[in-house]
């Protein structure tokens, strides 16, 4: 098959195919902007001459996060992490209208195409869409650099618009994204066998998820609350083991939460089906039980973002608690010797600023992840439009079908979001559940110079015990996080209702 033919076949689709290709392109554009930004941050050079002991700051930037070379890899990783929800969005988009496309591929096979050729059509579709999206992202990135090239009153740059990533990095990003997309598309196609007689799809009765996700989660919680604190206290444990634990525990808990959503979906579906009185709950329950893993797939990115949000909230509560006891200790100090201790206000502001930035990234991540949910909700409607149009024709109000979608998404999402937020917060409890201020007891010299300290008038006896306080449970923050995530979910469900009318129109019933 000539490449031109593959391209033509790849583009010969319906409106849904166009939508899928378009959304794939949009995801690619977002991913490329995020990765190019990360590369830009990493491209910031350390000013010469290099100071082995110094801070090696880049003073041209306003933000400490960009000034300090030690913090820049963190900023870049956060940007790259943003690609995870984008990837989830892309995968969700690739499922859009897939049944119709699979039928089209079967028609190609019937017309004499080899399996390799159908594969080529699919990979060309994904690769081309991603390439166009990536190039659009590059254009947005380059245009954005010009537009956002602003300085504040002090002449400092808001963003690193004075550096560009090296050409090879730009080229690598533009080549890697389409390659990854093509590969993913090819891998996803392996799940359906396209034969000339149509797409082989056995009746799926997905086995209900076992209890293992819950076990993973419980082990994670136990590790976070028991094992990690123990390891931290036990001096003999090498640091790298603790660091590994701090990585493995959150990742394991994320896997537990996401996989656990399958179980939650199944249980919620069974409950709705068994006890729900309305047709909408019956419809939702049926869908949840028929494919409980759908909930995991659809909510995975959102839950990961919420889990990270929970971690961030836990850290913030830890930081504020620490600042509070430090301030109290400072008060005691001042009362004791009449001299205000230098409160590290700037340091505190730096930390809270950094936390604000992390929270912003989390909010963006939740929004992107929620967009994947919109695609899933729309897909849920569109893929069943024939049956739903028939229901509407037999007099079922559209509202019943709309409500069934709300139930289907909200029933697993609500508990899962709660579990994710709580798990994230629990992870931070592993580092500690109380904060302690510094204390001092003994003789303190109030003078600046050593000779002056010989004068007993300049000496003061102080006894300030360290203040230890339990970190309060950040209920407000956790509530805010779950409410925000739920609101995002609800918004996306509401938007998906735009598809309700068209997917239940009489036209869907036409056969001849």
């Amino acid at each position, binding site marked *: 098959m000539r490449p031109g033919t593959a391209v033509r076949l790849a583009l010969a689709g319906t409106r849904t195919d166009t939508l899928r290709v378009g959304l794939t392109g949009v995801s690619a554009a977002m991913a490329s902007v995020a990765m190019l930004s990360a590369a830009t941050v990493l491209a910031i050079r350390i000013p010469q001459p290099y100071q082995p002991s110094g801070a090696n700051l880049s003073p041209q930037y306003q933000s400490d996060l960009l000034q300090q070379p030690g913090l820049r890899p963190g900023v870049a990783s956060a940007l790259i992490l943003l690609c995870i929800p984008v990837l989830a969005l892309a995968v969700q988009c690739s499922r859009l209208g897939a049944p119709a496309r699979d039928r089209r591929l079967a028609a190609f096979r019937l017309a004499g195409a080899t399996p390799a050729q159908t594969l080529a059509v699919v990979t060309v579709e994904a690769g081309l869409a991603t390439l166009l999206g990536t190039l659009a992202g590059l254009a947005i990135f380059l245009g954005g650099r010009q537009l956002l090239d602003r300085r504040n009153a002090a002449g400092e740059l808001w963003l690193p618009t004075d550096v560009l990533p090296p050409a090879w990095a730009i080229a690598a990003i533009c080549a890697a994204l389409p390659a990854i997309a093509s590969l993913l598309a090819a891998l996803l196609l392996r799940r359906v066998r396209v034969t000339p007689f149509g797409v082989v799809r056995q009746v799926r009765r997905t086995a209900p998820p076992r209890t293992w996700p819950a076990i993973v989660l419980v082990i994670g919680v136990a590790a976070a609350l028991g094992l990690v604190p123990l390891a931290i206290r036990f001096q003999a444990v090498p640091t790298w083991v603790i660091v590994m634990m701090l990585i493995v525990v959150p990742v394991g808990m994320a896997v537990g939460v996401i996989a656990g959503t399958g179980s939650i979906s199944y249980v919620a579906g069974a409950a709705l089906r068994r006890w729900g009185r309305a047709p909408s709950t*019956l419809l939702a329950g049926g869908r949840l039980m028929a494919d409980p893993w759908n909930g995991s797939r659809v909510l995975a990115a959102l839950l990961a973002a919420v889990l990270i949000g929970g971690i961030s909230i836990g850290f913030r509560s830890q930081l504020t608690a620490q600042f509070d006891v430090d301030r109290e200790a400072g008060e005691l100090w001042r009362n004791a010797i009449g001299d205000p201790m230098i409160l590290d206000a700037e340091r505190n502001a730096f930390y809270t600023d950094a936390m604000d930035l992390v929270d912003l990234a989390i909010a963006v991540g939740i929004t992107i992840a929620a967009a994947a949910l919109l695609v899933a909700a729309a897909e849920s409607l569109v893929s069943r439009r024939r049956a739903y149009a028939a229901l509407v024709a037999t007099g079922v109000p559209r509202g019943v079908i709309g409500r069934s979608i709300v139930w289907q998404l909200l029933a697993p999402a609500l508990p899962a979001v709660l579990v994710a937020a709580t798990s994230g917060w629990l992870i931070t409890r592993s580092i500690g559940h109380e904060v302690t201020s510094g204390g001092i007891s003994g003789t303190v010299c109030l003078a600046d110079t050593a000779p002056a300290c010989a004068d007993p008038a300049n000496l003061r006896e102080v006894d300030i015990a360290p203040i230890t306080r339990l970190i309060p449970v950040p209920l407000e923050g956790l509530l805010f996080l779950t409410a925000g995530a739920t609101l995002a979910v609800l918004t996306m469900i509401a938007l998906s209702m735009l598809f309700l009318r068209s997917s239940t129109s009489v036209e869907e019933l036409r056969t*001849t």
Partner: protein
Amino acid sequence: MNDAILSARGLVKSYGNSPALRGVTFEVAAGEIVAVTGPSGCGKSTLLHCLSGILRPDAGEVVYREQRVDLMPESARARLRRSELGVLFQFGQLVAELTAAENVSLPLLLAGTGRRAARTAALTWLDRLGVAELAEQRPGEMSGGQQQRVALARALVTEPRVLFADEPTGALDTLAGEQVMAHLVRLARAHRTAVVLVTHEPRIAGYADREVIMRDGELADVALAAAR
């Protein structure tokens, strides 16, 4: 005929600029089975959709038991469809994730029947259609003929006065099609349900009391059809 349960006069319906119905007058008496036949694309489905209140005609009137269906708002037409009219399509109308019994009990739940009563009624109707043993199966696990019988049970479970069937055997092989039609006719007679049966197969039209033929959006000479 003044014992007509459903009648239509001068129905006109166009899709954009192409007319699908050009003034159709039609009626069906209580308990009567009428076949609407004609070549593909002549407007049979459009007629059925207008009669059942799924579509609103551009002109003309549809009267069901002294009510002007064409003047009702969508919500009222939907209520009518789920209480007094039944609709059966060619294929793919069952909800794939629900069992046969759940599919059949849906219209009853919607009407406010309790779960248990709805289930009992659903099982009764599945039994009448000879598919009682499929009650806990999902559509994907049934043959086309079995699915169509479950769909027929769903259409009849509310005991409608008029059943609209659009090519109900169109996706079935001969034997399965005959079975569905035999059940349909037997149950319609037993419950005095009028049936508007759209088909392009003369053999299926043979089950009807009366046949009307459509061509190009109009009814062909009805007298001629009656004389056959």
